[in-house]
């Protein structure tokens, strides 16, 4: 293991679906112990990049290094002990219980020679406690609310005990309260458990609120990356998202807050100023 500040290093990664190039020689360092949020317009390649980091897509060229080791060289279970993934729309049988699902997070830690151990039990209990689903353990998944279900999936990823956790739009189908609830939980994975988080988020304001590092993708390349304060500017949002907006500072959290005004790529300085007055 190294002391490098980057947990993961994406190097000149290119990837296409058929003849459509999705990622174009993209390079990106992922900082250790930080929350990195990938954002960008639809079809910009952010989910593809996240899946590539979890080796669900085979790169055409380029490589992804995890602690300076090429992830292509890991076997399936070894990689699953390093990088966890919460899918965009995960699904499991409705009659599966909460505990059974969270147990599956221990799958990469077991083998024929390593049956269920005390370590696995400890990790299972810790994951359920940490996400507040321990009291639901014998409930069937089909009987849970959307917010509870998302917590259980996060518990499964937590039980996997990976240093890196990737989450693909985890708040997509949740209402406002559960969105905050879910992302607060993700932040706790980062702060309390020291996990490196890579998160794809659609909502720019949520991204700005939870990200340590924000990455804007556009058309398969990195448009910009930096702190939310550096990236959330009216000019940047106009050029990446094609939306004219006003960016103010969130009076409660001190993070940048974007108020969209209208679509249109041309940045007209007068608009935001006029809206401000």
């Amino acid at each position, binding site marked *: 293991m190294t002391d490098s500040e980057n947990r993961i290093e994406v190097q000149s990664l290119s990837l296409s679906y058929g003849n459509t190039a999705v990622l174009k020689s993209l390079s990106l360092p992922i900082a250790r112990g930080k929350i990195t949020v990938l954002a960008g317009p639809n079809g910009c390649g952010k989910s593809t990049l996240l899946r590539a980091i979890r080796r669900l897509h085979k790169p055409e060229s380029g490589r992804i290094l995890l602690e300076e080791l090429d992830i292509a060289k890991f076997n399936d279970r070894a990689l699953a002990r390093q990088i966890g*993934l919460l899918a965009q729309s995960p699904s499991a049988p409705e009659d599966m219980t909460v505990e059974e699902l969270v147990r599956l997070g221990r799958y990469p830690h077991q083998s024929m020679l390593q049956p269920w151990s005390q370590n696995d039990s400890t990790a299972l209990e810790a994951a359920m406690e940490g996400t507040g689903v321990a009291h639901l353990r014998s409930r069937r998944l089909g009987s849970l609310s959307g917010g509870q279900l998302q917590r259980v999936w996060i518990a499964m990823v937590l039980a996997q005990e990976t240093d890196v956790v990737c989450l693909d739009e985890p708040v997509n189908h949740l209402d406002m309260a559960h969105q905050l609830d879910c992302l607060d939980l993700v932040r706790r994975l980062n702060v309390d458990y020291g996990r490196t988080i890579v998160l794809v988020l659609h909502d720019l304001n949520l991204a700005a609120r939870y990200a340590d590092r924000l990455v804007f993708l556009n058309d398969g390349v990195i448009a910009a990356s930096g702190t939310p304060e550096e990236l959330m500017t009216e000019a940047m949002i106009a050029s990446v998202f094609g939306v004219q907006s006003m960016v103010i500072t969130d009076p409660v959290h001190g993070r940048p807050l974007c108020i969209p005004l209208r679509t249109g790529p041309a940045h007209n300085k007068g608009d935001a100023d006029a809206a401000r007055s």
Partner: protein
Amino acid sequence: MSGLPSTLTAARAPLAVGLMGLAFVLLALSGVAFGSTWIPLDQVAATILGAGEKTQKIIVLQLRLPRVVIAALAGGGMAVAGFLLQKITRNSLASPGVLGVIDGAALGVVIFLAMMSNESNALVTSIAYQPVAAMLGAVAAISLVFILAGRQSSSAIRLLLFGIAVAAVAKSVTMVMMLIGPIYQTSQAARWIAGAVNEVNWGEIQITAIAMLPVMALAFLVARKLPPADLDEVSARGVGLDLPVFRLLIFALAAAMTALSVAFVGGVGFVGLMAPHLARLLVGRNVYAGLIGSFLLGAIMLVGADLIVRVVFAPTEVPAGTVTAIIGAPYFLFLLMGRQRHDG
């Protein structure tokens, strides 16, 4: 079941499997006891364990027991194939028939009967080669399914669609050959297709059992990987299971198990659908209990069906598959209607 104390829930799977085992033993003994002369159960058990006088030994060991054993192996094998398929497709309506294996085997049997019959409707070779023909037909069918699906073989739905297509083609060719074929061939083929527990000898049982053993062992070895296969593909790969590759392996195992089951007994209907479904209801989600429970229930169903046809229709030999179909078809409808209510 969440209302039950956890110790009771934990004991449920072994308890259910134990009861099924007991039911199977009793039914198998009854299967041997029934016949033109009734042999009491205790004498049946004693004869199997080595006691008894000579004629009784011949009746039990040479005439009746092989029939029960092949029924148990075939019913159990079909049920295990169904269990694996229902698990890997995440669909409780999947059954061994969907892979095209059974119809392929039927076509193999019909081609064998057609080619080996002479002008007076008699076979020119031994009927003992019929299972070989069934096996070849089954292997040809599943190979064709995998070749047609090609690079899409890892997709469950594509594979099932090609399986259904190959099954349909095999079935229609079988029909045509039966209609234009000689009379002997038609009745013999119809008997195979319905699924009959034929008179088999111990040598044939040995072949079936020895071939089934490694397939079963492999199924148990990889059963550890079945729980994450319950997840969607992305999540399964996220916890380290290469689902597309694993799915291919399970399809191949299920196809092998089906082919071995039908080779001697024929295309017994619905056991591969009903037994695993009932087993999962009884034992819950534990995959090892599910595998054993499916085998036992499948064995119970086919041994029971054969017993019913022997008791009800004697001395006419009616294929046991007719009974499983008569019970299985309404069960399938019931399942479908339950699902509709659930989905809508």
